[in-house]
């Protein structure tokens, strides 16, 4: 588990102050907190609930309602493999399999232990012309093959090592 750091904690306080601890601003507050942690740890949710004077069940409800919020930590690199019709026909499943194999992930396990990668499938990202497509964070990679997936990942690993 990723630890809450001093910086995170300061940030939560700052976010709460920025929104004047206004319970009506719960969604933007959670968005900002998630930007800080890359997910919403339940300790942070509990802290937000206390600070806003809301029942924790309500904060938890909102946090689990929007697909955008994640309650489990996500990796630094989120790989979205498109599984829309066009990509599916062009074997997006093969990409998923290859990435899982490369990163030691499975159906139940979407994030690597070092919190570097998270693998998710999405429905159509609107780049059907490039099918099969995947996105790594904001970068689109088109006409992918299983081998190309491995290469992209290796490249990231390389960069990470240097950093």
């Amino acid at each position: 588990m990723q630890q809450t750091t001093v910086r995170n904690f300061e940030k939560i306080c700052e976010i709460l102050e920025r929104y004047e601890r206004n319970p009506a601003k719960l969604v933007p507050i959670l968005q900002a907190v998630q930007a800080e942690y890359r997910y919403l740890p339940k300790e942070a949710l509990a802290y937000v609930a206390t600070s806003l004077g809301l029942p924790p069940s309500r904060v938890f409800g909102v946090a689990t309602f929007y697909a955008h919020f994640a309650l489990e930590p996500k990796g630094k690199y989120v790989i979205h493999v498109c599984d829309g019709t066009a990509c599916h026909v062009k074997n997006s499943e093969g990409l998923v399999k290859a990435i899982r194999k490369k990163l030691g992930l499975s159906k139940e396990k979407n994030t690597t232990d070092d919190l570097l990668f998270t693998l998710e499938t999405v429905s159509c990202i609107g780049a059907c012309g490039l099918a099969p497509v995947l996105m790594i964070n904001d970068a689109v990679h088109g006409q992918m093959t299983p081998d190309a997936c491995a290469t992209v990942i290796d490249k990231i690993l390389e960069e990470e090592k240097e950093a």
Partner: protein
Amino acid sequence: MNNTMQDTQNTMWIDNREVPIEGERNVLEVARKAGIDIPTFCYHSDLSVYGACRLCLVDIDGRGVNASCSVTPEPGMRVKTNTKQVRDIRKISIELLLANHDMNCPTCVRSATCRLRELAERMGIEKLRYKPVHTPRAIDRSAHSLVRDPNKCVLCGDCVRACHEVQGVGAIDFAFRGADSAVMPAFCHNLDAVECVHCGLCATVCPTGALTPKPEIDAVWADLDNPQKVVVAQMAPAVRVGLGEYFGMAAGAVTTGQAVAALKAVGFDKVYDTSFTADMTVLEESEEFLNRLNTGGTLPLFTSCCPAWVKYVEQYHHQLLPHLSSCKSPQQMFGAVARKVLPKHLPLEEKELVVVSVMPCTAKKFEAKQEKFNKDGKPEVDHVITTAELGLMLRQVGLQLQNLEPESFDRPLGFKSGAGVLFGVSGGVTEAVLRYVVEKVQGKPLEQVDFHQVRGEAGLREAVVKVNDTEVRLAIVQGLANVEAVTKQIRDGVCPYHLVEVMACPGGCVCGAGQPHSFNPAARRERTKAIYDHDRTMDFHKAQDNPELAAVYAEHYGEAGGHAAHQALHTDYQHRRRLHELDLTVTDSDQEDKVQVRVCVGTTCFLNGSQELLRKLVHYVERTGLQDRVEINATFCMENCGQSPNVRVGNTHIEHCTFDTARDALTQALNPDISSGFAVSP
């Protein structure tokens, strides 16, 4: 505009019948007034309108199909409640719910009163056209009060709104989305790990078997079957005006004698009345009140007979704990008295005695199981069953309440005054106390025992009673959310009241979650009326006139409010944290012998500046390069809110902590040999 015109205009048309609009909030209420039972899941007149179940659809001329619960009635509006389209949509809604429902109706405790089952039958659904998509979910039996079975939930949200709007708690809410959506406590916790006060209001409003009182029948049967045990019952006042409904009698039917007979019929050795110890509560609480009034003690005094309310204060308003009467509730007083009086009276060996309560309430189940009411492994009250559970036990032995010959309570603990019976309704405790206090203060017998000014239905009622030259100012609260107006007054130092009665259930105990389920909105009023009528038929109306109670005092407790009474009949309260196991690690270190610093960021400590304190500590640790040796946690409520902010450094607990004290303690903990004062200044 003249009156006649207004009258003729203020009507609407429902299924071609002209129906007057008389302040109804929505078309649904107008239709129901006209005798048309439009089906609903998510509508409750006491709660906000949610408009999600889509069952209450009607066809409105010029507007098409609409949810009638969400449309304001307008003069001249024409509504059809029974078109083919409306019928079809309703039917499909029910069918879809059924496809996603755990359909084990024969083994569901709500089978007989389930709204979903009833509607399926009413709509003539004979087979499922949709593929069942139900995936089983875990049942939550963690709480003593309730069982939460998400497999039976139709997501109407009634419980969520009841808990939030009426009780001001919000222990449960919707979580997740789409096919995964469910109603649950925060973080998928169990109900016993969150701030639920066990009032059971959620179960009262739930239309299905998703939230139900937790049964204790089996444990009771086991003791009844055990020849080594003498099993006695205490029956709460509200049970006698609720049990009849379970057997199809009219709401508010008074069945005291038959309820006693029912308990005897299922095998109880003795049947006593909780009203006896309610009378006792009157004496103890009145003495406590007069004492506070005369000596300038903490006022207002809060009543303490509702365990849901007590838990509410314990977890949200620790600073008001001194306002809570120290009196045990009548249920717990009964347990204590029975264990003291009965061994000699019956006689029996202490260990043979089993005390069972019959209560209209789920919170009483929780109350009886608290550690503080358990002496040397023996609880004051062994089992708590609800009114409905008693009804079920009777049916299990094949008897109907109507056919039983009434019997009387056993003595001495079955004798009571009308005051003790009034505890069943909101305002009843106040009235019972007034009957004692006024008589005592004015020093002559009280002739007019009825205090109509404390009766009524509002969520927060005020009354003033003049005794000699003193004005006693009272407030009566039902529904815990309504108490916030009073707690705020106390915080602001402007609270005018001397005595505040609080009951969690709207209507008081007669409407508790342990009463038989009723779809009759008038039941609350009928049960309340029955209690007042019952009081009128009694020989005594004041607790102080109860001769058997006086005898028990004389033999065992001495004076009301005296030392022996205090030992046995009073209790104390604790702060409770609402969030368990949720500490926020702010700085962490891998070192083995690191010092742990825990700063409370619970609501109270938070309000008293713990966030700033935490921030300063973190900076201090960083600046002095101690990160490796210190781990700082933010933790939720150390249950010591009166001394906030609270901080723990290693094993040292610091109350009213300031940065300087925390820093010194930290220095001390890091350098046990060096005296403090060595700290690096911030």
